[in-house]
């Protein structure tokens, strides 16, 4: 018994070490030299150098001088690309992701938590940013959060400054609670796709009236007048109408995608990005005309009725029709290997390598409103960077290092050291137990 406790204490020590390693190194200027640099914006450069100063990219190219006194990372044989951006994630959310009680709840704002280990796993997959979304139980769900993977920092400091305010809409089976086990009497409106459209129209009509009420109040400039009741829900809907909050809409079928674009156009706003959008290939021209972008799965298929018409060529067809397409994880597992998901675009539909890579870098950055800050390796952009052991589409590749704001938040060497420590402790524990 006592011996076992020693084993446990050993494990505790390793865990403490794990925490210590989780803390990122202090901010310092870094140069990555002699690497293959996939810039996304300006092609791929071999034997190139990237210089990072004050968290931003200061220089990129083959003839770049490395300033003295800064940390140099040897990039020989390695591939450097912009940090991967996941446009659909449910990681790091506190206290439930579905406010399923009512169908329209845009006033709720996702509270970020900092201790979800998925953040670390995402870093290990080269991911530096993600859009955290409300679930899909509501026609109009909550406001999401765009975060950077600043693992080890407090929750408040994970927010990506400058990103869009984003609200999640949802259509189809999930909002109508088609697979709910609750008795029918407890299921709420809307129960059909028709009801979803009417829910949208009813609420946006309310929001128009609310906005008009406030406009009239503001126009009167009467100090003694009682201001209208402030309603956080209608206020958020009014912000959607004005374009202040961007819409990301969970969707599957072509008909419902067309429906939502019609509703939005009737009310004078646009759908920023359709999420999942597995039948996007059927309505790609209409989506392009509307100005919608698309964030989809690479080859997820048939997991429910409305996902039966999915095809792996969806990404390539939509891109070919002029839509800005990203591929997302929607999963704490896939977030570790989004580069493989992007590669599927080359196999099915023949996307170019750069177009495929854009689906996890510049394109999701556009959908999140951060393309002026990240998404490519260009001078002046924030130094969110992934360093791969081989080309990111190579089967044997893995992430060596992930930098956010020019700081190393994941280093495979350290992770391997950590794993050895754990394995060591595990063997001690096992040995003691065996006696």
């Amino acid at each position, binding site marked *: 018994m006592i011996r076992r406790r020693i084993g446990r204490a050993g494990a505790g020590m390793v865990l403490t070490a794990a925490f210590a390693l989780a803390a990122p190194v202090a901010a310092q200027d870094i140069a990555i030299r002699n690497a293959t640099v996939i810039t996304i914006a300006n092609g791929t450069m071999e034997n190139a150098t990237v210089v990072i100063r004050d968290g931003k990219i200061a220089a990129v190219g083959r003839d770049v001088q490395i300033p003295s006194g800064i940390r140099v990372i040897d990039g020989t044989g390695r591939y450097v690309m912009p940090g991967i951006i996941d446009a659909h994630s449910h990681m790091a959310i506190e206290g*439930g992701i579905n406010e399923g009680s009512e169908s329209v709840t845009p006033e709720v704002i996702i509270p970020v938590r900092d201790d979800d280990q998925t953040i670390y796993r995402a870093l290990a997959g080269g991911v530096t940013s993600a859009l955290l979304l409300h679930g899909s139980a509501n026609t109009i769900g909550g406001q999401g959060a765009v975060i950077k993977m600043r693992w080890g920092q407090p929750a408040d400091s994970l927010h990506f400054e400058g990103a869009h305010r984003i609200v999640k809409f949802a259509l189809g089976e999930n909002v109508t609670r088609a697979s709910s086990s609750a008795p029918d009497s407890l299921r709420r409106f809307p129960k059909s796709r028709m009801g979803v459209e009417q829910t949208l129209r009813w609420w946006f009509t309310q929001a128009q009236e609310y906005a008009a009420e406030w406009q009239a109040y503001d126009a009167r400039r009467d100090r003694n007048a009682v201001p209208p009741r402030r309603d956080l829900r209608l206020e958020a809907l009014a912000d959607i109408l004005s374009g202040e909050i961007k819409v990301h809409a969970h969707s599957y079928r072509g008909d419902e995608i067309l429906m939502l674009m019609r509703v939005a156009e009737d009310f004078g706003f646009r759908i920023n990005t359709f999420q999942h959008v597995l039948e996007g290939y059927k309505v790609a021209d209409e989506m392009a005309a509307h100005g919608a972008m698309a964030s989809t799965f690479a080859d997820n298929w048939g997991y429910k009725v409305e996902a039966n018409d999915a095809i792996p060529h969806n990404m390539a067809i939509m891109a070919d029709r002029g839509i800005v397409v990203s591929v997302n994880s929607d999963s704490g597992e896939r977030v570790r290997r989004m580069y493989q998901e992007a590669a599927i675009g080359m196999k099915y539909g023949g996307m170019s390598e750069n177009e495929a890579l854009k689906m996890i870098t510049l394109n999701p950055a556009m959908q999140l409103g951060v393309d002026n800050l990240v998404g490519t390796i260009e001078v002046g952009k924030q130094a969110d960077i992934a360093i791969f052991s081989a080309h990111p589409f190579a089967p044997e590749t893995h992430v060596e290092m992930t930098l956010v704001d020019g700081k190393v938040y994941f280093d495979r060497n350290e992770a391997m050291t950590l794993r050895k420590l754990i394995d060591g402790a595990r063997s001690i524990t096992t040995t003691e137990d065996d006696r």
Partner: protein
Amino acid sequence: MMRSALAATLVVGVVSAVPASAQAPPTPPDHYALTNARIVVAPGRVIERGTVVVRDGRIVAVGERVSVPAAAIQVDASGHNVYAGLIDAASSVGLPSVVRQGGGFGRAADDEAQEVMPGREAADVWAPSDNELAQLRAAGVTTLGLAFNGGIFPGRIAAVSTGSTNRSPVLRAGIAQQVLLGRRRGGYPGTLMASIAYVKQSFYDAQHGMRARQAWERQPSGPRPDYSPDTRALEPAVTGALPVWLHGSTERELDNITRVASDLAVRNFTVVGAQEGWRRIDLLRRVGAPVIVSLEFPTANQISGRSFELHVAPVTGEDHAAARADSAAVFEARGNAGALARAGIPIALSSYGMNSPVRLRAHVRAAIDAGLSPDDALRALTVTPARLLGIESVAGTIETGKMANLVVVRGDIFDTDAPIRDVFLEGVRYQIPAPAQQQRGASARADAAAPSVTGEWVGEVDSPTGLMQFSLVIDGGGENLTGRMSSDMGSIALSGMQSGSDITLSGTWTPPGGTALAVTVTGRITGDDLRGTITAQGMSPFEITARRQTPGAAIQEVSR
């Protein structure tokens, strides 16, 4: 804090003794002189050998050379310490429970009312049993701050006496408005994010309701505003006339609740809970609010950040247990009150959230062992809670004019082995049975060995998509707990440990066609009721409640 009209709500009985009327039952004697006592007047102020004289519920003399009035009953306290009665700053004893009590699918009609009743006075619904009061007195607790155990706007704080004399036990009502980022069962808000929005909206509505009413009163020809009792009840909290008690335990709960307070410009507030206050000392210093610390200690795996460690550890029963058994984390959590006090944050201690509030003294002892100074502990159970409850003029120290609430202990009050001999409540003497006699009482049972958790438990998971029924069969005890959880989602084999009334069980669940997920069930047993959470890897915890169906039975099924 007392300058407002609320001071007027001090019950008259406290300010001036009510003369016994002819019809009243005979009053017990309340004229005593405690002699030869070591008197702890206030934290750090001790009279090594002196006398306390009490009369008509008040302390009338304290000192080394106080003459004993002839009419007073003399109580020899040589070899004993006399302390001011302990004040449990936030207790839910005797209040209706706002947290889930089992029940069927959906929700009962009155559930909504339970969670959102901002006008409800704790004083008005307080119904403790005589046994509960006797146990509290036996633990040296003479005064309680009454706080509901959950909800969103469950009601208002009161200060009450634990004595059952002829006087009303209520010292003060309407002390503060409780605000929690809680969930409503089966309705909006069902998540933390919605709760934040709901609390804000409720404050805006109160503000608007007030403006609309004032405008109508000025100009009755204008639109007549609707009357909503809940909205109306929140007005004093919104204007700052009534202090707000903001609840938050974990570090991010503290972040969230203080951010909501800041967004709503709530300044007159006290933080309640703060079980992870030591992880947010800078924040608590910055907001400058006093903190009522819950002495319900989190288990190691409930501490923020521990899930990371659990997931770094290999996902096997043994190693989960290893990670959980990290006593350093538990010790750190117990050192919470000490860390806050050392940081200069005014603290009061409380049983808030504790399963057995009568064990407060034992938990104070544990906090002292983990670094809280005894003087700070005493201050946090007397002077500071008296101030936070607005009763500092009548309670908290042994001074002339204050209520004669006294505890006579043979030894140090925080030495759990030191017997409490007498408790005086407004001058009425309660002789506390010796420990041997107590063994037969309920308080002794609370201290007894951990309850058996074996048997089949049937209950529900409260997930955002609705309630899901499950059955949980538990076998074993101590560090060798095994179980099997069965539901529509399949069956999960579990292993874990029991610590007192708390259980933790872990296992892996493989959804059809999916990858294995680590699942952790934590819970607390009260008799045949189990309440806790289930957490699947990468997801937020869902609340579970269950009731034991067949104690000890159906266990063979597990071992087969």
